[in-house]
């Protein structure tokens, strides 16, 4: 317990000190903020994929749902940031629940296809429904968010807002996985039949893991909306979902802390490979293949990728 307190305090101090260490360089801070957003997304995805063993190819859609919800609420309905954030998360949770319902009947690969279809439908709807989502142009001019009187304008401001959201995500997920809920998710991943005989209502728990993981994606989306001040459908393509999956696998499935190195490594790789444009996807794929060959459990993972 004490050890954990020390680790938390050290992390907190490092988090506060980081912008100064980066000497407020906007480019480096922008990369850091990208890492923060993807960490929130991938922590939620790790719950779904790493802990419960459900492969979702639609995580970017829930990210998008959060982003669009915040964008629409703030630009068209005059909502403040905090209520928009909460609503965005809850909306993603609700839609995660609805998409999770078929897990009762649909298994494995078929569930994966379902999430893939959901992600594509979401993107196509946002492109086509010009009156509501602004079509391919997206929604622009999202106002500057204020949190309890604090105007969030600069990269550093957004960094601290991001750290607060990331802290919330990590701590609540940690609580969740150290409770009977987290163990139930792991049991389902390990052996669904044995899990049900242990008294775990497996259909409900699969829906639960999917809704909760999506909730955090909604929060990340909300943050993205105010950070970019625009949202467009191209933020939420299949490529984004795949990148998140790669980050979780490279970091390590079934362990929250492993998410961070996975996200950071891939984010830095993306930046380093930027000069080679579209060939970078090739290199990112190569990194994942190397990880799967030589360290299938990921850098810090608890369990290897199965079936």
């Amino acid at each position, binding site marked *: 317990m004490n050890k954990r307190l020390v680790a938390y305090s050290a992390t907190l101090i490092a988090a506060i000190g980081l912008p100064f260490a980066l000497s407020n360089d906007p480019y480096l801070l922008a990369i850091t903020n990208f890492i923060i957003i993807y960490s929130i997304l991938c922590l939620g995805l790790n719950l779904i994929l790493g802990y419960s063993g459900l492969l979702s190819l639609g995580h970017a859609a829930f990210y998008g749902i959060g982003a669009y919800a915040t964008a629409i609420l703030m630009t068209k309905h005059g909502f403040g940031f905090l209520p928009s954030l909460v609503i965005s998360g809850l909306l993603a949770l609700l839609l995660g629940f609805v998409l999770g319902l078929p897990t009762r009947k649909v298994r494995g690969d078929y569930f994966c296809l379902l999430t893939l279809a959901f992600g594509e439908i979401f993107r196509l709807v946002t492109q086509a429904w010009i009156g509501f989502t602004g079509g391919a142009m997206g929604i622009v001019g999202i106002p500057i968010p204020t949190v309890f009187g604090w105007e969030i304008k600069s990269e550093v401001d957004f960094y601290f807002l991001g750290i607060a959201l990331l802290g919330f995500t990590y701590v609540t997920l940690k609580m*969740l996985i150290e409770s009977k809920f987290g*163990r*139930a998710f792991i049991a389902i991943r*390990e052996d669904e039949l*044995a899990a049900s*005989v*242990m*008294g775990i209502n497996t259909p409900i728990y699969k829906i639960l893991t999917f809704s909760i993981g999506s909730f955090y994606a909604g929060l990340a989306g909300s943050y993205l909306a105010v950070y970019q001040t625009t949202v467009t459908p191209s933020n939420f393509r299949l490529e984004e979902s795949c990148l998140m999956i790669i980050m979780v696998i490279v970091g390590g499935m079934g362990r929250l802390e492993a998410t961070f190195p996975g996200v950071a490594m891939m984010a830095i790789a993306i930046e380093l490979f930027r000069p080679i444009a579209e060939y970078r996807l090739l290199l990112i794929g190569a990194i994942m293949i190397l990880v799967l060959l030589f360290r299938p459990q990921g850098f810090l993972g608890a*369990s290897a990728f199965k079936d």
Partner: protein
Amino acid sequence: MALLETQQVTKTFGGVTAVKSISLKVDHGEIVGMIGPNGSGKSSFINLLSGIYKPDIGRILFEGEDITNYPSHAITGKGISRTFQNLRVFSNISVLDNLLIGRHCRIKNSLFNVYLNPLASKKIEKESEASVTSLLEMVDLSDRINDFARNLSYGSQRLLEICRALASEPKLLLLDEPCAGMNPAEVESLSTFLKGLQKSGTTIFIIEHNMKFIMSIAERIIVLNAGEKFREGIPQVIQSDKQVQKIYLGEEEEG
């Protein structure tokens, strides 16, 4: 009222009748054994009792309540828990987590607590930890509590699986060939352990091929043959039954 009662329970797979009209009763505090040649429907019968299969015909009553169509997790909640013939411990997680998963339905935690009252959540989880560690003491596995289950010896994994089933505080414990793969010393200590459980009030239903074990521990034996109840009686009578010997050992190898 019997603790468990099955009435004409029947299960067919395609054209094959795995369990044919089995009616039996298990009383509070009993140890009942079920034997029968391979393929006689013993494991199917346990799968019916634990809700993995649903009977085509017949009813299953537990403490007078009709549980025939309950899902597995609800049956565990009612107080029936089981082990598997081919060991199904969660091998990639710790011994402690295995037991805590076994206790799942008795842990009164909620998502509300996890998100909005973390201290209460922590307290509940700590209490359940304490209650499962006492199970490990009974089988001398306390020092392995943080090991991965897969690193335990085969016999220890069998004991862990029984402890995991006990973690849900069952009234009725179903054991599917608990002695398989155990050495004679382990069988002996399992026998002592189960008798201790019986004294503390747990009813036990065992499928087993190890005759020495089952005859010494069970108070009543049910013999299955081709999915049907073939004989029922006290061990001494079953052991000396010529018909039972015949179905079990075949015509030629009598004795």
